[in-house]
């Protein structure tokens, strides 16, 4: 719960305009790590609830992030049995795939409503998400081990 609260606060910290485009979706990263390591507690319902919360935080139309989070949650649920036992660097590929899916879906929805899309920031957001995910993964893995001891 503390990790989720911290992620929410970091997501809301006011930044200058140019940095806003670089900030990764921390809630999505928290969802991915929790669903990977606590699969018995956090299933697809958790991704739906977190999606509703993300819609509230981002001020988007209700259902926008629910759809993105559910889609990513479903992919994690599908692949976690294989991915959970891989090396972190290999798991990062999955994170890269999920964040790219989320960003491309956002870009597509912006194109649909004629909003501008900042394509040049997409690779940096994906890369930063992976870089943030690596220590986050280590932290959640430590908590997971500690709970099972």
């Amino acid at each position, binding site marked *: 719960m503390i990790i989720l609260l911290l992620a*929410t*606060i*970091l*997501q*809301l*910290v*006011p*930044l*200058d*305009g*140019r940095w*806003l*485009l670089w*900030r990764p979706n921390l809630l999505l990263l928290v969802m991915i790590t929790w669903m990977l390591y606590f699969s018995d507690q956090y299933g697809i319902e958790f991704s739906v609830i977190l999606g509703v919360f993300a819609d*509230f*935080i*981002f*001020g*988007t139309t209700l259902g926008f992030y629910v759809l993105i989070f559910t889609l990513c949650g479903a992919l994690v649920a599908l692949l976690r049995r294989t991915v959970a036992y891989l090396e972190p660097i290999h798991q990062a590929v999955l994170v890269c795939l999920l964040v790219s899916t989320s960003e491309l879906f956002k870009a597509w929805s*912006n194109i649909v409503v004629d*909003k*501008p899309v*900042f394509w040049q920031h997409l690779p940096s957001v994906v890369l930063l998400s992976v870089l943030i995910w690596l220590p986050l993964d280590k932290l959640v893995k430590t908590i997971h081990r500690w709970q099972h001891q």
Partner: protein
Amino acid sequence: MAYHLQVMANFPNRVKQWVELKTTSREELEQRANNLEKERLILLGKLQRSADLAAENLRLRQLLNASELLMDSVLVTEVIGVSPDPQNHRISIDRGAEDGVYVGQPVLDATGLMGQVVEVYSNYSQVLLITDFNHALPVQVVRNGLRSIVEGVSDFNQMELGFVSPTVDIVIGDQLVSSGLGGRYPVGYPVGTVTEIDYQSGEKFMQVKVQPSAQLDRSRHLLLVFTLQNGVFNGQN
């Protein structure tokens, strides 16, 4: 709950400000105070000229039997939150219905128009910035009075003028101010400067890019404008 989350998220910024204040030396503070005093004198000088122009304007309006001149009152406010979605140009300010804030109220910073209040809660409000994709604002060119509409493109450093015919008199460097049409924004507040004009032959309109006057992604202290109409300030009983 949203308000409390925003206050918590704003906490690192407050700590940063506090540390900056505590680590500033006495010499630096004295230098800053001296600079501010000089700036104040320059502004007072400009204000004298402005008061003279306002008086002249009033006399001319009286000669023309024009309607009552609008006068504005302001309330200082602080930014407590910024929308985490970079496409959604909204900010939260620490003034709400308890301070007389109302929906549609114009918001300024020290250099120009920032946006308008779109949601009011008891102790905080949401402001839609002029650079938001869903925002459009009637403006006029200071040099020749040409009227147009400036639209946001979800970029903090750029807006676009809509429907500008290739034959109109507009040049790079032209200053734009609010025209007051539509009744939402008061007349004469700086909006931006024309930075780029592009015309592809065969097109009906030119593409005119505008840099906003206000520091939309940096200003922390803002002004809420209460316009005086028929002797009563809007939003205040």
